[in-house]
């Protein structure tokens, strides 16, 4: 099934801008979305502004850089295409980035070939440590089909505040190893076990890409 959120945007745009309150003055760090407050640089977009946007969106921080708001541009099957104002795009599937564009190094394919496939079964199903494997393809440079091993471990439940809502989410640790790149990374996902929605993630997509922190502020309505 494929669906897009964009058809009516042209009609809704004036209303949307008004609702979003985007014309308001810059906000102070005290208006930060709470989970980001202690770890990342301040953002000047307010919870109120985010809440007023009628479309699914998330905040993303790359490395120690600034936060960006990404809006869901398309939902194509299980894929979610998130677009930034500077035209980077992250494509997620069940909360995990499977492709990206516009970054210095991009994932152009992440495929699991193991019996356990978190892109199909979801991270919310992980109750015990479990291993998976697959291939990773990176551009530029045509680094294609690099075998990887992934080990998923449930860490426990954590209370996360998203906007004004407190959620108790399962924290899943992923240890990803790509031998051909001599690269191992630990990624973390905070997932709602009820519906497999990943509300927050800290992950590194590739060796030359800084660590990324994503926090869904408003999930796609069909996912929750």
């Amino acid at each position, binding site marked *: 099934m494929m669906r897009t959120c964009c058809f009516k945007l042209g009609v809704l745009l004036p209303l949307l801008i008004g609702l979003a309150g985007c014309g308001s003055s810059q906000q102070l760090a005290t208006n930060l979305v709470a989970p980001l407050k202690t770890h990342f640089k301040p953002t000047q977009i307010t919870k109120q502004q985010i809440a007023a946007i009628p479309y699914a969106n998330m905040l993303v921080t*790359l490395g120690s850089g600034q936060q960006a708001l990404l809006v869901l541009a398309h939902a194509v099957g299980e894929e979610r295409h998130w677009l930034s*104002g500077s035209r980077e795009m992250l494509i997620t599937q069940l909360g995990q980035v499977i492709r990206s564009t516009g970054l210095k190094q991009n994932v152009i394919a992440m495929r699991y070939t193991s019996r356990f496939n978190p892109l199909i079964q979801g991270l919310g199903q992980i109750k015990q440590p479990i291993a998976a494997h697959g291939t990773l393809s990176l551009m530029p440079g045509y680094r294609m089909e690099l075998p990887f091993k992934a080990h998923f471990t449930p860490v426990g439940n954590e209370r996360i505040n998203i906007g004004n809502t407190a959620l108790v989410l399962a924290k899943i640790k992923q240890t990803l190893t790509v031998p051909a790149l001599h690269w191992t990374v630990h990624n973390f996902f905070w997932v709602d076990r009820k519906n497999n929605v990943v509300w927050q993630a800290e992950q590194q997509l590739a060796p030359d890409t800084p660590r990324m922190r994503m926090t869904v502020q408003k999930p796609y309505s069909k996912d929750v």
Partner: protein
Amino acid sequence: MYKMTLFKNGALCTRLIMLVASLFTSFSSSAATIYLKGQFKAPTSVNHDQLPRLSQVLTHHPLTNQAYRLGFQLQRPSAQRQQAHLKAHVLHTLKQLSQQTPAAKALFQLMQSLPVTGRMRLKTSLDGIEAQPNNDPLLNDGDRLYMPAHPNTVTVVGWTGAQQLPFNSQWLLTDYLKQIRFVDAANKSFVWLIQPDGRLTHSAVGYWNRKAYTVAPGAIIYVPIQDSYVKSFHPTFNKDVAHFLTTQPLPFAKG
């Protein structure tokens, strides 16, 4: 330096919303039939009242899990004429060369069997193309969108004989070349590497000049003939062969 736009103020926030809103607002005024082939979940032909952007068609036609985006082709009938001329020119030269080097005959037969596709080179990857209007081509009536299945081979053609080798993610270009035998007329210093997205690289592979080139599944390696054989009557011959090979769809015809 990595950065995504920070929405510091209202203007930038509005910019994102307008960007998303613009994704579906670029139309032209002529009707078009677009043909979808390969790894679309529903290969079909679709009619549009107005000429659509490539992204508009792709967004509404999901792909199978076997789809190989790097090998995607936009094939335009109006581009076929120029490619047919290129093919004819290459075939003409190969016919002449077949009297000097037997390998030319095999390459002639291979090239003769290859289709003229009208492939257009895209400037960017498919993901996010809708956010880059300058790189999101307006489709023409009769255009074909071809999405191949994921390949697991690399093809070598030219003055080596044609053969398909299994893709190996640990191998560089020179590793593939170790698996083949060059014929006497082959240029052993440079080959042409044709990646599945159509990118063409004149690649240094001699032991004195070699560089590290990675190779994608579905790539074609063209081992050229030494320039001295063709420079007097078709100096661009090798480049022309390579350019024609960039138009070929996956899976590549077996030689």
